[in-house]
């Protein structure tokens, strides 16, 4: 075996390791894109790498992650932006509604289960199945907020399970906020159901968002206290809104802004209902959400009127 025709074993091993690591970074791209162009990208990555390198460079890694996310946004921006954006918004608010009930799962397992069924039906694009379910869970949520019985006997107040902690369900604030949150989902589903065209199936990763929201003061974030849970909630909101603005900028598409707008609507209801007890921090928080939603709505317009390659 001559050194001129065969690479040294160490170089070959490094190249194999590099190919494996670049393969992992290529997971940033959508599956279909990877199937069609993954081998070509990998070949180019290996061709441009210096011999003996086993770890991807920071520049190439960042380029692949950015390129993958950008491709995902572009691929996701197919079909009607209005209907798909509404579907996404319904999923966000339905997930937030489930997250709010999740800490009370032991006390009201049936309703938490039905709320999870709403999220599952929305995820799968089974809109007509989700409509009666969300109406039922919404009516129960409003009944609990009003302190009235509805269908089954629920002992009030409902305290959260030990691992979650926090106040009793709907003990802070009134019935308007939950009513608007469920009405928004119901109205969105009714509009979507007016068209028979199939909806995009959403990623199962959405389930991961539910316990994340549930662990971050989903009912009444206490901004004045600035607890780690509340700060995590604000961080999560800002990250998702910035992602929506970025995706709208990349794809020149308003669907993410529409979804952000639906979430903002539920926050507006909370502001309106609790205006008398709102602090400056609460208003600043809402103003920030509204500003980022407006940015998310404006950037697709700018991308469309001034395209940049």
């Amino acid at each position: 075996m001559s050194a001129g025709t065969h690479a040294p074993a160490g170089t070959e091993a490094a190249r194999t390791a590099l190919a494996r690591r670049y393969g992992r970074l290529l997971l940033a791209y959508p599956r279909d894109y990877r199937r069609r162009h993954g081998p070509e990208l990998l070949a180019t990555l290996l061709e441009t790498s210096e011999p003996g390198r086993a770890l991807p460079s920071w520049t190439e890694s960042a380029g692949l992650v950015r390129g993958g996310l950008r491709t995902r946004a572009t691929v996701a921006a197919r079909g009607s932006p209005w209907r798909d954006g509404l579907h996404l918004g319904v999923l966000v608010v339905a997930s937030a509604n489930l997250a709010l009930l999740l800490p009370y799962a032991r006390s009201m397992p049936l309703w938490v289960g039905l709320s999870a069924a709403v999220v599952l039906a929305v995820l799968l694009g089974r809109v007509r199945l989700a409509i009666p379910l969300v109406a039922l869970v919404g009516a129960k949520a409003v009944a609990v907020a009003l302190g009235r019985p509805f269908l089954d006997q629920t002992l009030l107040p409902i305290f959260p399970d030990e691992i979650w902690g926090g106040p009793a369900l709907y003990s802070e604030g009134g019935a308007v906020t939950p009513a608007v949150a469920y009405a928004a989902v119901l109205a969105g589903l009714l509009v979507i159901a007016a068209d028979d065209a199939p909806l995009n199936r959403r990623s199962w990763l959405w389930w991961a968002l539910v316990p994340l929201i549930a662990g971050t003061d989903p009912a009444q974030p206490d901004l004045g206290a600035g607890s780690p849970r509340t700060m995590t909630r604000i961080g999560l909101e800002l990250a998702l809104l910035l992602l929506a603005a970025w995706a709208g900028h990349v794809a020149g598409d308003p669907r993410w802004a529409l979804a952000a707008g639906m979430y903002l609507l539920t926050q507006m209801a909370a502001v309106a209902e609790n205006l008398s007890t709102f602090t400056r921090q609460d208003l600043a928080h809402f103003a920030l959400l509204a500003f980022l939603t407006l940015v998310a709505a404006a950037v697709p317009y700018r991308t469309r009127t001034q395209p940049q390659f």
Partner: protein
Amino acid sequence: MVGGMAKKPPTLSEPAYFILAALLDGPLHGHAIIGRTLELSEQRVKLPVGTLYGALDRLAAGGLIAVEREEVVDGRPRRYFRLTDEGRGLVTAEALRMQQAASVVTSRVLGTGSAFA
């Protein structure tokens, strides 16, 4: 409605400009575009692979380049990209625009004359 808005002429980012410039001499595959871009920019613009293919996808979607052919060389798939007439026109217009803009300064500093007619 976003579809009916009046569009301004598209602008070119630096990577897109150099990719189009690299294709002026004929069709090239991804790796060759990176090499040619590096050469044209005097080693200044080194396109990461993710950035290159993202730009190629956008330029192809915008009709500025097209896939000329696909080949498999030593088991490695390759797409060769070529410039379309629209792409050639845009990169030429961008080069003239930059030349005119540069002449505003160079005509005064170096006394080379303005590129504006």
